[in-house]
């Protein structure tokens, strides 16, 4: 029993990512989409928080959204995986529920 959490807001604009990470459980997955993908950047004010959680939670970014925003793969935190829309669908199917942190 595990949850897919989606975050679509920049962690520099709203508290959604922080609240999501504070509520997800070991074995859950977090998928950053839309402006949420900025949460995957290395060297930012929230990078430590994300990196810390990446041990117990699988963290993904939607590649279409990182590409749109000019975020090259080598700018992302280590251990964060890119997925396409098909991968998004698989993540939804593979977890028992999806919770959107709007």
């Amino acid at each position, binding site marked *: 029993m595990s949850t897919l959490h989606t975050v679509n807001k920049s962690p520099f604009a709203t508290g959604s990512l922080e609240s999501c990470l504070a*509520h997800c*459980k070991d074995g859950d997955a977090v998928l950053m989409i839309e402006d949420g993908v900025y949460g995957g950047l290395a060297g930012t004010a929230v990078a430590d928080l994300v990196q810390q959680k990446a041990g117990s939670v699988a963290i993904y970014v939607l590649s279409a959204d990182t590409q749109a925003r000019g975020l090259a793969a080598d700018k992302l935190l280590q251990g964060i995986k890119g997925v396409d829309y098909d991968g998004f669908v698989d993540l939804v199917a593979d977890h028992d529920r999806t*919770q959107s942190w*709007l």
Partner: protein
Amino acid sequence: MSEIKKFLYVNRKAPYGTIYALESLEVVLIGAAFEQDVSLAFLDDGVFQLTKGQNTDGIGIKNFSPTYRALGDYEVTKLYVEQESLDERGLTLDDLQAVVYEDEDDDWEEKPSIRVVSRAEMADIMADQDVVLSF
């Protein structure tokens, strides 16, 4: 439709500045007719939805806070409020309006619907649902 699912309505936004709180409540009221296992979560700015003493005369928007008190009549009796969210906002349970229901399994005794839980407990509640609707 005989299957009973656990529905969680997650409220993370303040009332009046945006319509999400009101339109969340409208779903809860309609959803009550479907006899599912319903819980409401109030965390982050969602805890502001339950403050007492709301008076919207000055802004010209309908005050919908009394509706929370009617939820018991719809058998919606589990309103989970996160302690840490209250703390960060300088609020205590005393700042929230009382919401109660009559427990049919306990001789219709009046009981509080608002249950203050820790962040860890809230995470457990979220992880125990079939359907999570976010507002």
